């Protein structure tokens, strides 16, 4: 009776060994990253994994006076530190800088065993640290040297991300609504309690950031509403007004879906020469280290960009039931690929005079960095040259050195971008909890 059980426990050991083998079999990237940047990225065949590739450097922050490296001819300085997960920056007309300190609300229910494990792994990088749920105002010290003054400006927000000033109204996009505040220049603490302009999709909040742009005529707000899943695994009914760019009327808060099928649109901004709306988007995961490249694209009104049914036009994603060939046929191919899993999260069209002429008229894009790819990708701010209002390339790294050479430690990760009156580029770093300013070398 008992003899066979000895064999069984041996089998258990075999099974445990097999589990180790399985977890070690993550795929390395095979496609040259440069082939996945530009208008026609190389797309390998998709794969199904037992354990998807995962590589997460440990978040350690910047030690002492350590700083990111910048391209030749540029310099970098720290204008604020010790912030609580800064994600976004806005420069006000009087040169005060608003810093949105925020992270996901952490309200997504655990509905699969995988979520238990994935949450633990991702948090190692420091990207999961608790956000301040507030906006801090930075003001340059009278002497003009060293870090800027910090004032807590608006508190008790709910995972805010987008922030825009239109006339004397300050709009803040929380994960679940847009708040409107009366802005008074010079204040270091917002005196207006604010009113709600519009509600935003607020269930699950798998992707929680609500990026916000204002139309050149100041009449409409555009909101990036990310999908509630990687690829529909929470059911398509929770994707209502998700994976979409929403348009909100600034006078009454009425909204509509402006464009759809963009998995996680952020960095919404109008290209200054053509007035076209652009977005950067994070594409789907877990079908390969080299799939699917994140992208930068102009956003066409009523355009459909594929998610979840397909990517880069008509490349069908088999993970969605039911398949929709009619939607796949409609899917627009994005303009410009930025590389797989780089996690584009900040976009800025540079119009300043400070930096070299070559940066004028193009866009800076911040890449928050990969968690599901070996080797790491992203973790830098790059420059994308534009021609006739469209991205042209070649893409050049501008700010780098956010992780250690051996890819084990993470010092920082760039997110929101902005430009100050002197033409300096401001970068929010939500792992180093720092605001960086890049400018021409004096």
């Amino acid at each position, binding site marked *: *009776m*008992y*003899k*066979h*059980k*000895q*064999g*069984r*426990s041996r*089998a*258990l050991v*075999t*099974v445990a060994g*097999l*589990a180790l083998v*399985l977890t070690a079999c993550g795929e390395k990237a095979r496609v040259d990253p440069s082939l996945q940047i530009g208008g026609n990225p190389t797309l390998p065949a998709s794969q*199904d*994994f*037992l*354990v998807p590739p995962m590589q997460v450097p440990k978040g350690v922050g910047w030690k002492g006076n350590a700083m990111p490296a910048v391209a030749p001819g540029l310099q970098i300085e720290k204008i604020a530190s010790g912030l609580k997960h800064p994600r976004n920056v806005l420069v006000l007309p009087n040169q005060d800088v608003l810093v949105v300190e925020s992270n996901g609300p952490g309200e997504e229910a655990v*509905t*699969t*065993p*995988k979520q238990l494990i994935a949450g633990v792994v991702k948090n190692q990088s420091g990207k999961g640290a608790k956000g301040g749920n507030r906006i801090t105002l930075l003001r340059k010290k009278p002497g003009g040297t060293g870090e800027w003054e910090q004032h807590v400006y608006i508190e008790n927000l709910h995972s805010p991300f987008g922030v825009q000033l239109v006339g004397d109204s300050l709009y803040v996009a929380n994960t679940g609504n847009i708040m409107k505040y009366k802005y008074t220049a010079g204040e270091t603490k917002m005196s207006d309690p604010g009113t709600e302009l519009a509600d935003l999709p607020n269930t699950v909040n798998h992707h929680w950031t609500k990026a916000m742009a204002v139309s050149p005529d100041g009449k409409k707000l555009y909101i990036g509403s990310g999908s509630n*899943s*990687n*690829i*529909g*695994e*929470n*059911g398509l009914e929770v994707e209502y007004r998700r994976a979409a760019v929403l348009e909100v009327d600034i006078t009454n808060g009425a909204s509509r879906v402006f464009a759809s099928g963009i998995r996680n649109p952020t960095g919404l901004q109008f290209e200054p020469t053509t007035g076209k709306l652009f977005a950067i988007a994070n594409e789907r995961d*877990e*079908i390969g280290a080299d799939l699917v490249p994140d992208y930068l694209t102009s956003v066409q009104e009523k355009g459909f960009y594929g998610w979840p049914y397909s990517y880069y036009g008509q490349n069908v994603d*088999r*993970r*969605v*039931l*039911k398949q929709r060939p009619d939607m796949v046929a409609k899917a627009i191919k994005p303009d410009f690929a930025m590389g797989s899993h780089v996690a584009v999260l900040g976009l800025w069209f540079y119009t300043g005079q400070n930096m070299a002429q070559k940066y004028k008229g193009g866009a800076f894009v911040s890449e928050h960095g990969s968690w599901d790819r070996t080797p790491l990708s992203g973790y830098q701010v790059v420059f994308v040259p534009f021609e006739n209002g469209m991205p042209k390339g070649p893409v050049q790294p501008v700010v780098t050195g956010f992780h250690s050479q051996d890819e084990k430690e993470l010092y920082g990760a760039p997110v929101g971008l902005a430009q100050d009156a002197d033409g300096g580029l401001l970068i929010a770093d939500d792992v180093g909890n720092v605001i960086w300013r890049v400018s021409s070398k004096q």
Partner: protein
Amino acid sequence: MKADYPSARFSLPSAIFTLLDPIPFGMFVGTLIFDIIYAKTGEILWVKGAAWLVSMGLVFAILPQIINLFMVFVGKTRVRTRGQVINFWLNVVAIIAALVNAFVHSRDAYATMPDGLWLSILTVLAMAIGRIILSGERIIYKDVTHVQA
């Protein structure tokens, strides 16, 4: 056969084993049912349920196996029948299939199919056949004539 078990002494490990050992089988049957429903409907509820069932089935399989280990080193050597050997190897197949299946069920949405469904069928078939074979050799639920020795 019956002569091998002359005593009906109560043993705690044996009781725990008897309580826990059927649980994985039931959960794997549930996994299979949910997988069939998901494969047909695409309703996410069912595949998430299946993911929990296959994972929990594996967790519940741990303790009975540890008890087995204890029994092996402390228990006396017994006669090993052919049915028990076949059942043992079928259990190995089932547990490996269920483990791979747990990983397959960590995929998103329909990426679990069809692999997950085939692995669920394999797990349940292996365990079921093992149990059927073993039932022919067990005394429980069988009319045992108490022949005077």
